[in-house]
């Protein structure tokens, strides 16, 4: 006779534990499979998101060169001096140049025109990658002949074919074909505009080169092949040679990082939904195991009587839970791999580079492993109670009472906290955010528990003997022994809370991207209107019966010093960010804030999208020689660490100008009005080189076309930005993003359904016995059903209310502290959730009551 294992580890590997676990599952396999599904859904969401991120990352790594089309991109708003190239000749194998700007492209008659991004190129750009064109070879033809290549959309819009003519500025170009793939964008601000490619040497003939104020110049450098160290040294040399004010240098890695950060941010939100789905799955597991253990209390008690050590009895059910978790994990990982491929197929074309659904075995293994551990952790909560089952339960007639909580559970809660935190970290959140996320879930859990106990007390207090019996009986079930109130509130309530929170968060994210398209919102912008052209343009507007919504003069300038500290001195700081003398190390001024070119305006009043936060506008009249009072946008003031009264020296196209912050204002950037970081009072910038921006609102595409045709003749250098087409592009992108978010939120919903089913099954046994007793005592089927329905409707309503209350609170907190937007209570989702929750509960209660009534009292009484 071998001694039985008394340690848990040995017990877990004891063959009898596995044999007994298998036998014990016999009558419960269908039910247990349901819970494996809830784990599977959670794991599926987690693995799909992680695998997607890994695929994006890998695709980025393999395509970094293609993203930029060159080893080094040197960019400037001014023509780039080529002198440094002489010294760099030993490091560079090829060079190329580009001048890019927005201009109107029209058909030769001028009847139809459209704003395009003109890219005048010279040299072999893009390097190391081929450009796909229709017809094939059109890219090479462009190098050799006068012509123009277009985005496919432009060919369709102008209804032109290779050989047809289009007009750019003063010159007609022969259409050589369309570019289908392979020319990386060198200017990130041109993202929405269709592109037209011409030779750089043909640019002067258009007459557009000199008149455009928003021109970008690019220099492409292909480095000589070498080791990584040699490449780094060469890059350092290039940076040094082009370290001029206003010159930016970008490498493929920089761009990859930019995209990667964007992807990571999107993933952060999606990860919350994945974690939510997983935690819901975990709660489902805990509920399932709890019910299972309750049904197994007599078995455990008998085993203890027959000489089974408590750890071995515990191991039997731990083995079951782990196997269940493993099955769910394997299924979830498989589904996750499939969902990953589907997501790439579905959302891949929303990204600016190709994403292949690469197999991610390691990522899937890692995330599935973490998910499995989390599910096992949740299963431990009810499993621990096995160790407290007493063999004396065999002597009691009704022995299905699961022992109460013990101190050991505190350890499991700590373990769960750690596991959820680890999974949140695995999702990419930093330690603090992961902690906040985990704590939020913990608070929700605790709040729902407290709410459940509160509701039990409340129902006990509110119930009156005068109530109809069926109602009284149904409501009383909420607080009677063996009630399901706590379990329901924790599963369905927490499910509702998590689902609504996901929904609300999605709404908040989308509301930040929401486009204000009201009647007073401009949808047509005129850029580069020279001061002497404003009268002409206004006349055109008047002729077309269009209002001039805004007319803002625009003057470019740079920051020279802040609070007496010169920009050159600040730039000497070793970090990527600059710091002011009194700034703490963590309060550095972002370098781009110091280096960028600001386009400022001057006016007396603030517009409707601006609010004064500090100081006053208009400022008091200033005297000659004193600093000019200006108004700063709040974020810029924050980045510059300046407030009202602080002095800034600006470089207005070579002329230094002393200014003092007179007003800090908040700007609603979501509006399409003309807004600026710096606003000057009139009387200062009028003589500085400037152009005007005018806005209007066109009622239709036809009006827009007519206006553009007239403008092309009256003021050919003026660029028209028709926001209606850009809005369509943005809306399409947002729609895709929203669909991906909703798809992921769907995972959470799917994870919630097995929990609902589980919670209902949990109560079945208890209600079965009670209902049979009632029927034995003379209750009709209808009465039994009514009692069950009342109880389940009440449970559904209470769970939803508790979950909704928490979710609305969470939404309020997120709106206030994370998204910093006004909180808008959304009744729609709450009412939908209420209807679904009550409807689902009642439906399930109805199914339950049907199954209760389908059994004869004798069947149940015989089973004890």
């Amino acid at each position, binding site marked *: *006779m*071998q*001694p*039985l294992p*008394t340690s848990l580890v040995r017990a877990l590997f004891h063959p*009898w534990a596995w*044999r007994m676990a298998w*036998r*014990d*599952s*016999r*009558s*419960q396999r269908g039910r247990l499979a349901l819970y494996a599904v809830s784990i599977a859904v959670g794991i599926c969401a987690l693995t799909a998101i992680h695998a997607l991120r890994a695929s994006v990352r890998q695709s980025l790594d393999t395509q970094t060169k293609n993203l930029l089309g060159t080893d080094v991109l040197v960019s400037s708003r001014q023509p780039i001096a080529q002198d440094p190239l002489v010294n760099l000749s030993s490091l560079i194998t090829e060079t190329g140049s580009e001048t890019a700007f927005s201009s109107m492209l029209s058909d030769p008659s001028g009847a139809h025109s459209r704003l395009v991004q003109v890219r005048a190129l010279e040299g072999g750009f893009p390097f190391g990658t081929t450009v796909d064109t229709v017809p094939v070879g059109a890219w090479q033809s462009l190098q050799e002949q006068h012509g123009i290549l277009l985005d496919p959309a432009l060919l369709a819009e102008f209804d032109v074919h290779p050989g047809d003519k289009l007009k750019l500025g003063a010159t007609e170009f022969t259409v050589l074909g369309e570019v289908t793939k392979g020319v990386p964008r060198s200017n990130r601000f041109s993202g929405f505009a269709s592109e037209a490619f011409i030779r750089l040497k043909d640019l002067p003939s258009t007459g557009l080169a000199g008149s455009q104020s928003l021109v970008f110049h690019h220099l492409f450098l292909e480095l000589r092949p070498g080791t990584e160290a040699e490449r780094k040294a060469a890059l350092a040399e290039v940076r040094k040679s082009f370290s001029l004010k206003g010159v930016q240098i970008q490498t493929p890695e920089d761009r990859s990082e930019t995209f990667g950060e964007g992807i990571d941010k999107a993933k952060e939100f999606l990860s919350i939904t994945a974690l939510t789905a997983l935690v819901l799955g975990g709660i489902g597991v805990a509920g399932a195991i709890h019910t299972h253990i309750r049904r197994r209390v*007599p*078995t455990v*008690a*008998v*085993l*203890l*009587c*027959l*000489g*089974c*050590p*408590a*750890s*071995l009895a515990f191991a039997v059910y731990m083995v079951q839970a782990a196997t269940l978790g493993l099955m769910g994990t394997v299924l979830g990982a498989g589904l996750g791999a499939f969902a990953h491929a589907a997501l790439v197929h579905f959302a891949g074309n929303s990204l600016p580079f190709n994403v292949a659904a690469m197999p991610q075995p390691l990522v899937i293994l890692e995330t599935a492993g973490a998910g499995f551990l989390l599910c096992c952790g949740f299963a431990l909560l009810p499993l621990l109670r096995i160790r407290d089952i*007493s*063999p*004396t339960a*065999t*002597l009691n*007639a009704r022995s299905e009472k699961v022992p109460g909580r013990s101190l050991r559970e505190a350890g499991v809660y700590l373990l769960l906290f750690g596991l959820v935190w680890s999974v949140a970290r695995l999702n990419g959140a930093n330690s603090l955010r992961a902690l906040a996320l985990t704590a939020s879930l913990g608070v929700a859990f605790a709040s729902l528990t407290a709410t459940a106990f509160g509701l039990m007390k409340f129902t006990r207090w509110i119930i009156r003997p005068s109530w109809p019996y069926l109602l009284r009986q149904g409501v009383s079930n909420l607080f009677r022994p063996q009630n399901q109130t706590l379990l329901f509130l924790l599963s369905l309530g927490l499910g509702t809370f998590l689902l609504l929170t996901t929904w609300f968060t999605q709404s908040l994210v989308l509301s930040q991207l929401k486009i204000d398209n009201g009647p007073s919102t401009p949808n047509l912008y005129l850029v580069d209107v020279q001061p002497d052209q404003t009268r002409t343009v206004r006349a055109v507007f008047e002729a077309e019966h269009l209002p001039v919504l805004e007319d803002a003069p625009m003057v470019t300038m740079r920051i020279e010093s802040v609070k007496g500290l010169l920009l050159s001195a600040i730039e000497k700081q070793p970090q990527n960010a600059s710091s002011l003398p009194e700034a703490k190390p963590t309060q550095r001024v972002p370098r781009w804030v110091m280096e960028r070119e600001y386009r400022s305006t001057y006016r007396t009043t603030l517009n409707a999208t601006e609010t004064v936060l500090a100081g006053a506008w208009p400022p008091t009249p200033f005297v000659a020689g004193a600093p000019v009072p200006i108004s700063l946008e709040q974020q810029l003031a924050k980045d510059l660490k300046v407030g009202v009264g602080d002095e800034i020296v600006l470089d207005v196209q070579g002329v230094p100008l002393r200014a003092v912050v007179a007003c800090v204002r908040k700007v609603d950037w979501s509006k399409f009005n003309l807004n600026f970081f710096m606003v000057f009072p009139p009387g200062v910038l009028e003589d500085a080189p400037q152009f005007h921006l005018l806005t209007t609102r066109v009622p239709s595409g036809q009006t827009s076309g007519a206006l553009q045709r007239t403008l092309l003749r009256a003021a050919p250098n003026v660029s028209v930005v028709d926001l209606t087409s850009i809005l369509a592009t943005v809306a399409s992108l947002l729609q895709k993003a929203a669909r991906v978010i909703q798809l992921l939120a769907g995972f959470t919903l799917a994870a919630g359904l097995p929990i609902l089913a589980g919670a209902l099954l949990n109560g079945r046994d208890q209600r079965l016995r009670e209902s049979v007793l009632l029927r034995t005592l003379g209750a009709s089927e209808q009465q039994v059903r009514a009692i069950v329905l009342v109880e389940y409707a009440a449970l559904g309503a209470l769970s939803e209310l508790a979950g909704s209350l928490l979710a609305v609170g969470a939404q309020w907190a997120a709106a206030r502290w994370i998204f910093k937007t006004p909180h808008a209570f959304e009744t729609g989702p709450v009412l939908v959730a209420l209807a679904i929750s009550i409807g689902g509960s009642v439906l399930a209660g109805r199914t339950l009551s049907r199954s209760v009534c389908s059994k004869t009292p004798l069947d149940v009484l*015989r*089973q*004890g």
Partner: protein
Amino acid sequence: MAERTLSSLVPPVLEVRALSKTYSDGDRSLTVLDNIHLSVAPGETCAIVGPSGSGKTTLLGLCAGLDDATSGSVQLDGETLETLSQDARAALRGRSVGFVFQNFQLIPTLTALENVLVPMELRGESGGFAEAEALLSKVGLGKRLTHYPHQLSGGEQQRVALARAFVRPPRILFADEPTGNLDAITSETLVEMLFALNRENGTALVLVTHDPALAARARRVVRMHAGRIIADERP
């Protein structure tokens, strides 16, 4: 006389000294067993009788190490229960104790044969199918080996429980109202089997019962009232 002499020479299989059990609920306390002394010799049959609430089942549970006493001691098969951990008590039960319960307490997911095999499996013994089958045949269930408890009648379930208790003959068998859920004829059959197995294996038998006929089959009757032994008769 011969039996008494033998009993005094052989150490008792169960020795209870000054056993008390009190349940506390806040300020209130309820003493359900008060200073119980009891000794059961190997092979002895002892019926514990008394009205409901007199403490019979509580005494049985304490004697089998299923619960902890408030005071006093229980020595079972030479081991003092108070000094043993829960796992050690379980091991002792696996080695020396058998049970028959009023509500049968078969494991619902195991067949009749598997239920009988459980004690052997827990002892780490492989095989045993033949013995278990033989025992089930002996109690008249040779053709119900693969039936689950819910497919058996009450009497059949109790016979499976009996086979389980005797598959490895215990030193002592505790039976809590073994015929409480059975009809008179089934009870009679079962009691016959119980005592036959007791005789064949020399197992001490401690029965808790309300049934005077069953109590009368025992060599010794312990009467309880309000948590105390009021009579210890050896008819």
